[in-house]
């Protein structure tokens, strides 16, 4: 049995893809894995909650990808938590991360995962591995297509790898996993670009107005 602290770094909180992915992960975990999710905006304001993180066996940082790395609020939390743990005695906690981006390629999350791994060394946690998911928004929006469907199988497999490692106290090395839904790139691109035009209409704008050059 183990317990897992989930740190949700999405500025969109419960409305974000991170939240959806967290729920999917929790559904997969055995009932005897105790989980607790925190939004970073709550953590940075409460030293008791920061202290509580240190009582868990394992922690997973979950974040959207913002400009090839992490949102500023996540970076701020990380620095705050690093300062908080400095000089404290605590048992090394297993650390994972789960990063998702809107672009199709899971590989685009590589640098963000490396940042988490560097951070893990700074705070003396025990790095396990990171998962980077591409096409995150698509995965969330296509909720009716379950995670274990053929198109999303690679993403599902990465969640199974997280489940396996979280539930068992293994020390063997696991490589970071960078994956995405199985969609031809040109279809993802066409559908994405059509989706942006649809968003314009939803905001009472003509698609051409999206191209405005105001400066």
């Amino acid at each position, binding site marked *: 049995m183990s317990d897992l602290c989930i740190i949700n770094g999405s500025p969109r909180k419960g409305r974000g893809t991170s939240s959806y992915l967290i729920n999917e992960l929790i559904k997969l975990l055995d009932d005897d894995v105790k989980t607790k999710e925190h939004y970073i905006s709550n953590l940075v304001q409460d030293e008791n909650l920061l202290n509580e993180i240190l009582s868990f066996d394992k922690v997973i940082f979950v974040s959207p990808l913002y400009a090839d790395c992490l*949102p*500023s609020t996540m970076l701020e939390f990380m620095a705050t938590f690093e300062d908080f743990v400095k000089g404290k005695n605590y048992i090394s906690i297993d650390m994972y991360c789960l990063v998702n981006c809107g672009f*199709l390629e899971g590989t685009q999350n590589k*640098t963000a995962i490396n940042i988490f791994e560097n951070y893990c060394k700074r705070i003396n946690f025990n790095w396990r591995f990171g998962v980077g998911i591409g096409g995150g928004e698509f995965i969330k929006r296509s909720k009716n297509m379950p995670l274990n469907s053929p198109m999303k199988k690679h993403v599902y497999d990465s969640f199974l790898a997280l489940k396996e490692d979280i539930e068992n106290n293994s020390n063997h090395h696991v490589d970071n996993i960078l994956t995405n839904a199985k969609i031809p*790139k040109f279809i993802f691109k066409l559908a994405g670009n059509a989706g942006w035009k649809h968003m314009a209409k*939803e905001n009472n704008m003509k698609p051409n107005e*999206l191209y405005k050059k105001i400066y």
Partner: protein
Amino acid sequence: MLLIHDLNVKDSKKITPLLPPNSKILSKEINNIKGCVGCFNCWFKTPGRCIIDDSYTEMPKYILEGGTFVIITEIKYGCYTSYVKNVIDRSLGILLPFFQTVNGELHHTPRYDKPLKFIVIGYSEDVTADEEETFKELIHCNAVNLCIPDHKVYVIKCISEAKTILENL
């Protein structure tokens, strides 16, 4: 030139006189910055302009007017500091939402076709080899994503080294 930095007041005073006249400087001293919330309103409500009202609302304008976009940031875990990253996130309107393929990967298309320069100076007294590698990789990825292929990244231990870099730009 546009300079974004997270230097303390003492170091800032050493660096800023080296900039060309009419350069714009954004630093933590302009401390009303609010966080990017990933709302995409800079694409779908006020295209090209952030919807959050503070001194960072018109970041795309400052980048375009500056021509050379310089960042001086402490390296934290191979990344920018939180303040600098926030300024970058608040600049998203300089891109369009639409996708293009660059080096086999999807990225956003540029809103403007003005050629720009992107110079990033990362400083840290105790940066590790892994952090330095991650930082350099990040700046390269950002240059691709911001559609500014003309970019350079420097990693320095002491802020005085930034002087030489700026003088030779």
